[in-house]
């Protein structure tokens, strides 16, 4: 398991703090046009994801990539998470992983 380049669990609020770092986020796909996907983050804000997914996207998608702006990610990996997702639970995970339990996550 390659742990050399871990991605931080982020929502829109946390994304701002990790510009330039490798991040991962789950978004609800709102729009997809011309190489940019507009997604709703798990804390109900907007995140722009640049890149071209290799296959059609489901309603919820996890993107892993470099945060290239306070509100955008340059995606390297797209993973479909299906049409139902517990956004609230994921959001709590982001907060715990960057707060109290940061030491457990690289």
């Amino acid at each position, binding site marked *: 398991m390659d742990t050399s380049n871990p991605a931080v669990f982020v929502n829109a609020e946390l994304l701002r703090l990790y510009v330039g770092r490798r991040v991962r986020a789950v978004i609800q796909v709102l729009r997809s046009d011309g190489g940019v996907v507009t997604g709703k983050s798990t804390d109900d804000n907007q995140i722009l994801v640049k890149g071209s997914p290799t296959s059609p996207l489901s309603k919820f998608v996890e993107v892993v990539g470099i945060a290239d702006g306070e509100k955008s990610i340059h995606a390297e990996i797209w993973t479909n998470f299906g049409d139902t997702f*517990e956004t*609230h*639970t994921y959001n*709590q995970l982001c907060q*715990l992983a960057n707060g109290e339990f940061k030491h457990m996550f690289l």
Partner: protein
Amino acid sequence: MAVNLTPNAIAAIESGDVNAKPLVQVLDIKLIGSTQERYRLLLSDAVSTQHAMLATQLNDRVKSGRVRKGSVVQLVEYICSPVQNRKIIVVLNMETIIPDCEIIGNPKSLVESDSAAQKPLFNGNLVQSARVSNNNFSAQKPGHNVQNFPPTVQPPYKPPPNYKNHGPILKNDAPARIIPIAALNPYQGRWAIKARVTAKGDLRRYNNARGDGKVFSFDLLDSDGGEIRVTCFNAVVDRFYDAIELGKVYMISKGSLKPAQKNYNHLKNEWEIFLEATSMVELCPDEDGSIPRQQFSFRPISEIENAENNSILDVIGVVISVNPSVPILRKNGMETQRRILNLKDGSGRSVELTLWGEFCNREGQKLEEMINSGGFPVLAVKSGKVNDFSGKSIGTISATQLLINPDLPEAHGLRNWFDGVGKSASSVSISREIILGGSKNEIRKTVSQIKDEGFGRSDKPDWVTVKAAISFIKTDTFCYTACPLMIGDRQCNKKVTRSGNARWQCDRCNQEFEECDYRYLLQAQIQDHTGLTWVTAFQESGEEILGCSAKELYSLKYEDQDDDRFGGIIRSRLFIQYLFRLKIKEEMYGDEQRVKITVVKVDNVNYSSEGRYMLDLISKFPRQ
């Protein structure tokens, strides 16, 4: 503000005029009675005064202050019954004309000593009527004792005119007036009620220290919404049992009134009518529609979650599932039928309804057919009993009434809701354990906590839920040969032995047969992050765990002797996480006590609720 009270109103009432609707003034109001609230008014017509009892349905007028000392009121409906040498007025309806007024005229007030003198007479009467009553109710229901009237000043109870009594009794031969059921009380002289039969109980025979007897009851509802139960014993049963029909309207009079038996009688009335040989029950053939067919007070299913165990209530909902009837052995050795169905309403909750006995074959069967043909009928339940064995559920009792798709506004409302958004609306069952953190019944533990916290050591088994995975399954014996014969609706399942070469024998059924059944009897290890432990799993849990029938695995291993495939299947079922519901109990094995753990149910982990459960656990971690 001067107002004239109706002259000679008191005298007029006492001489039998009950139509005058006089204006009188209330001089005094006294609360009487320890078991029930009754108000006694002192009425004045500016010259004379007289006590009058207020019918209980008017109690609110006093409590809210609409009628107080000094109020001038108009008596709208009232009766006057002569008892011994006194007249007792009962006010059934009145209107407050002036709430507050100075005392009008110069009324002669009653002297209290009169009342005191009544007391011994009253008590004497009481013993008399009690003795007389006992003679005529030869076999009373056990535990049904003689009345204890509260020792306050009240008009003496006039026994039904049949009974010879000491002292003169003025017989009132006027035809009995129809009064509302809510006005019935034992102090009434003559009364008559007109009401519809809303429930007819079964004829029950009983046997007690005094001998054999029979009893039946029926419930009445009148046009004011008053309800009361009527009970008949022994010979009286023969007189009226066939005459009383559910749904018909009757005029009933000359029964006696006693406190309602709250164990059996769930109607909102403190009294119950007991019919005697001289009671009158007349069928009223002309339906005037003023008397409703049935009275309900439905509670939303969400409120039932907080209802008290064993309480009686009405509920209405859409039937979303009906299970088949199963025979159940009762404690007295008798077998009965049971069916479980689920009701859903607009409160976001659903509840299990258990039908017992005849309900399974009648309404239960009909509902099953309706569900099977794709319908979702509305079901109204009157007098269901709350049960808190697992979550809260409702069961039928003998007094329960079930109405399918009734013509009620609540039913129409439910129908519209269900056909619109209701059908797909999510609802949580209050009858089953909710996975999130478990309901009150479900305790979540880890494997190590089972030993550390000493589960299984008390007299009763402990039930816990553990999230774990199977890490090992004993495969040398994983099933047993079971008897496939049916005993009633259930399979025998006793272990069978070989008889001869090709046949099996069951000792319980005393039969031999060619083919036996194979049922799981698994010994397995379950493991979580804290440790591992051995458990036993039977047929249903075994099938969940292994994902195939015991017979299939048996054939694979012993008939086809395909060890590779067999091993492959077993391995593929390991390390899948489940929520195991475990029954834990310490038992003697030879000389030592060992804790035996049985898997009662295997549930898949619901990731959304499990995620929420874990977040909740995290929030409860002690902080450094």
